[in-house]
């Protein structure tokens, strides 16, 4: 168990994962569930256990749409999306861990793609 990493995630997310009562409503509501290796309720539970490294290595980090449905519907105010984001920040901030690099961008563009998508992607996937 990595205590300093757990503390970092706790502080950065501002979430008290201990409030979770394991109802799974976050995973029930998640629109990206099938794309994820670790599901929202597992994020919360694994952060509670301090088992964060597997999450940091998982592609699930980049599957969360930050749509806040889990935050809105969580009966315990746990805010799973914030936990996912904190773990993602921990991951992309490691040296050389940017999930998106500028060189990749041109290939992804098309005429109609709104700017906000690029801005968002940079915000979310890079240091």
């Amino acid at each position, binding site marked *: 168990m990595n205590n300093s990493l757990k503390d970092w995630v706790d502080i950065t997310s501002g979430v008290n994962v201990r409030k979770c009562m394991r109802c799974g409503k976050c995973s029930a509501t998640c629109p990206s569930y099938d794309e994820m290796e670790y599901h929202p309720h597992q994020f919360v539970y694994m952060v509670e256990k301090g088992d964060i490294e597997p999450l940091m290595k998982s592609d699930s980090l980049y*599957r969360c749409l930050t749509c806040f449905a889990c935050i809105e519907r969580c009966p315990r105010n746990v805010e799973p999306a914030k936990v996912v*984001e904190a773990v993602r920040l921990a991951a992309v901030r490691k040296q050389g861990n940017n999930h998106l690099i500028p060189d990749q961008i041109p290939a992804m563009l098309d005429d*109609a793609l709104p700017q906000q998508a690029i*801005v*968002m992607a*940079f915000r979310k996937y890079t240091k």
Partner: protein
Amino acid sequence: METFTYYPGCTLRTKAKELDRYARASAEALGICLEEPAEWQCCGGAYTIAANEPATKLSAVRTLNAAKELGRPLITVCSACHNVIKQTNYDISRNEAMQTKVNNYLGLEVPYRGETKIYHYLEMLRDVVGFDKLADKVVNPLTGKKIAAYYGCLLLRPSKAMAMDNPENPTIMEDFISAVGGTPVIWAQRNECCGGYITMEDKSQAAKRSNAVMNNAEDMGAEMIITACPLCLYNLEKNSDSELPVFYFTELLAEALGVKEAADNE
């Protein structure tokens, strides 16, 4: 005539010019003055949740402070901008540590403490103009049109910060549709995500979400969808198999108010 500080954001000046154009034309027709600040910065695109990091909040606070200095409420149309700016303001007005940090960074003469009132364009229609007054001004009612309002994820959530409508059973866009003469379609997927964030990275996941949304609207008998978000519009049009047309709500508004053509020729 009431004046608002108008924050368009990057997308409205590039890929979503219609959203902007019709918003301004309609506001004028409704007697609302939208004044764009001389300088504005990108809102940040996505709200960074990190509870203890001020840097990501700075650009939004600059905009908020500019509005405060002009002494007017701030108005946004783009769902993303609105979401980022409102969440930032919510945070800044409640989290004192964050407030101090941000103000230290910005070095403002008078610290910003969350004083600016923020309206989404739809809230302006509801709370300032009033939907009944709006209905009075409609010249081309969209009578008989079955229209599905698509809220997406950004407009309503997190509801504590957005404080716009019931996040699970909103009525603001439905009331808007009724005001411009259309028939609102009630459908469950209206507040589920279209897959916006993932669209650059994984078209298939975005497509899955967009299809789920479009299919539900179609299934419930919608003839068109309206949205306030450029990314939603892009996604629903580009990444779904549905033929259902998607419009910005401002376009319908401009049409109903009879100012669309003039705006197009501008």
